[in-house]
C-alpha cells in the first residue's frame, strides 16, 4: 500500500469570476454564465511510498502547491482522485489558523483543534512545542507582537508536534533565520528517519537535493521529470535557465527604465 496515490488528478480553476448575483442572472439569461477554466494540474499520476521524502520543484504556477493541496484534501480534483493513508499534517502557508489577539499558548490549542487534536493532547506536547519554537517569554504575549519569523517558528513547531504519518511542507524553508532553517531541516530529517512520508515544495534546490529521496519536476501542471534528485534538479536548471533568459528580455523591453 502506497502512502499517497495521485491517480489522473486534474484540477481546473475558473479563469474569471462573476462577483455579483445580478450579473450572474444577466449572464444566465444571455446564456454566457459558463466561465472559462484553466488547468492548474493536468492528469497527474504519481505514487509515493510509505516513508519516502518527495520533493516538488518547478517555476511559479507549475502546480506544486496545488498538488500539495490536493493531498491535503483542501482542493477537490476536477477529475481523477488522490488517496492518502495516514494522518496528515499540512504545513501550507505558515500561521494560517492564528488569531492575532490570542497569545502563543491559546494559539497552540486552536491550531491543534484545527488539526483535529484535543486540548489534552496539545497540553501534553506544550512544553516541547514551546521549547522547539524558541519563543521564550513571547509565548505568553498576543500573537500580534510577534515578528513574521516568530510566527513561522511557532507554526512549524505545532504542526510537527502532532504525530502525523504524512507531512506536507510548502516553502517552509524560505522563512525564519539561518539557525531556525537548520533546525527545520534537522526535524525533517528526523521525521524521515522515523518513517514519516514527506512531501516538500521548495525553491531551495540545495535543501531539496539534501533531504529528498525522489524529486518531481512540474511544469504547467504536468510532470516533466521524476526520479533521482540531482538528475531532476539538473533537468530543471537547464529548462528554467532558458526561461529566465526569455523572461528577463521581455521585461527589459517592456519597461526599459526599470532595472
Amino acid at each position, binding site marked *: 500500500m502506497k502512502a499517497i496515490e495521485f491517480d489522473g488528478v486534474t484540477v481546473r480553476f475558473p479563469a474569471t469570476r462573476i462577483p455579483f448575483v445580478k450579473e450572474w442572472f444577466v449572464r444566465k439569461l444571455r446564456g454566457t454564465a459558463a466561465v472559462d477554466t484553466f488547468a492548474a494540474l493536468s492528469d497527474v499520476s504519481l505514487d509515493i511510498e510509505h516513508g519516502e521524502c518527495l520533493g516538488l520543484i518547478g517555476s511559479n504556477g507549475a502546480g506544486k502547491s496545488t498538488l500539495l493541496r490536493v493531498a491535503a484534501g483542501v482542493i477537490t480534483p476536477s477529475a481523477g482522485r488522490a488517496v492518502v493513508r495516514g494522518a496528515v499534517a499540512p504545513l501550507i502557508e505558515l500561521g*494560517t489558523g492564528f488569531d492575532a489577539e490570542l497569545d502563543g499558548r491559546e494559539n497552540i490549542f486552536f491550531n491543534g483543534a484545527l488539526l483535529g487534536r484535543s486540548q489534552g493532547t496539545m497540553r501534553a506536547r506544550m512544553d516541547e512545542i514551546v521549547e522547539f519554537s524558541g519563543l521564550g517569554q513571547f509565548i505568553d504575549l498576543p500573537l500580534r507582537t510577534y515578528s513574521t519569523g516568530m510566527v513561522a517558528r511557532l507554526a512549524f513547531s505545532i504542526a510537527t508536534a502532532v504525530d502525523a504519518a504524512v507531512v506536507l511542507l510548502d516553502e517552509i524553508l524560505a522563512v525564519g533565520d539561518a539557525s531556525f532553517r537548520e533546525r527545520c531541516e534537522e526535524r525533517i530529517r528526523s521525521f524521515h528517519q522515523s518513517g514519516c512520508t514527506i512531501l516538500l515544495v521548495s525553491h531551495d534546490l540545495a535543501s531539496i537535493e539534501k533531504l529528498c529521496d525522489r524529486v518531481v519536476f512540474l511544469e504547467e501542471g504536468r510532470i516533466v521529470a521524476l526520479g533521482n534528485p540531482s538528475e531532476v534538479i539538473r533537468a530543471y536548471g537547464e529548462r528554467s535557465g532558458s526561461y529566465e533568459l526569455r523572461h528577463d528580455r521581455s521585461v527589459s523591453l517592456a519597461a526599459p527604465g526599470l532595472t
Partner: protein
Amino acid sequence: MSTIPEFCNAAGSGASLLDEARDLLAHEHLLRSLVMRDLTVRYKRSVLGVFWTMLNPLLMMLIFTLVFSAFFRFQIKHFEVYFLSEYLPWIFFSQTTVASMVSMAWNGPLMKRVRIPKSIFAVSTTLSGIANLAISCIPLAIIMLIKGAPLSSAVLFLPVSFVILGAFTLGVSLTLSSLSVYFADIKETYQAAVFGLMYLAPIVYPMSIVPEEYLRFVRLNPMVHLLQIVRDPIYYGRLPTLSDLMISSVWALAALISGWLVFRKLSAGFYAQL
C-alpha cells in the same frame, strides 16, 4: 494508532451527508473552540457582555413599547414581554444567518490550507447563536418578574422550540453562506431584506390587526410559526399548537435539505472563490 485513516479526495459527487456529519464529529475540538471563541469575544467582560447583547433588544423594546403601546394603543397586556418573546428569537435568526456569511469570509483562509468540514462555520455560528438566545432569556425573565407577567412551566418546552428554530436557521445559513462565497452582494442584499422582513411577522403588532384577506399570505411566512412556538410558552404560558409545531418542523426540514443541497453543490468550488 491501530487503524490507518484513509482519505480519498476524488472528483465528482460531493460529500455525503453521513461523511460530513462524521467529519464534523471528528472535528469536535475545533467546533468547540469556534463556539467558545464566539462566546468569549462577546462575554469577555462578563457583565458588560450580557449587557451589550441585551442592549439592542432592550432599546428596541423601549421604542416599540412607546410607539405601539402608547401611540397606536395596541391593547396588549405586558407589551414588553409580548414583544421580546418573538424579538429575541428573531434576532437570533437574523444575526446568526448574517454571522454565518461573515464567518465564511473570515475563515476562508483556513479552509484553503487545512482540510476541515466546510459546514463547520454554519454549524458553529448556529450553536453560539443558540447559546446567546438561551442567555438572553435571563434578562427576559427578570423583566417578566418586574412587570408581574406570569411565568408558566410551559417554558420547559422552550428547548424543543429552540432546536426547531435552530435547525431552520442552520439550513438558511448553509444556503446563504455558500452563496456568499461566490457572490459579494449577497450579504448586503440579505441584510437589507432581513431588516424589512421583521415586519411581516407579528413581532411588534398583534395578529388580530392583519386584515382577513392578507392572513393567508402572512401565514406563508415560516417565521410566523417558528416565532410563535417560542412566544406561546413564554407569553401565553401554554404549549405551542400542534399545527404550529408541524408547520415549523416541516419548514425546518425543508430549509435543512435545501441548505445541504446548495452547500454540497457549491462547496467543491469554494477554494477557487475564496
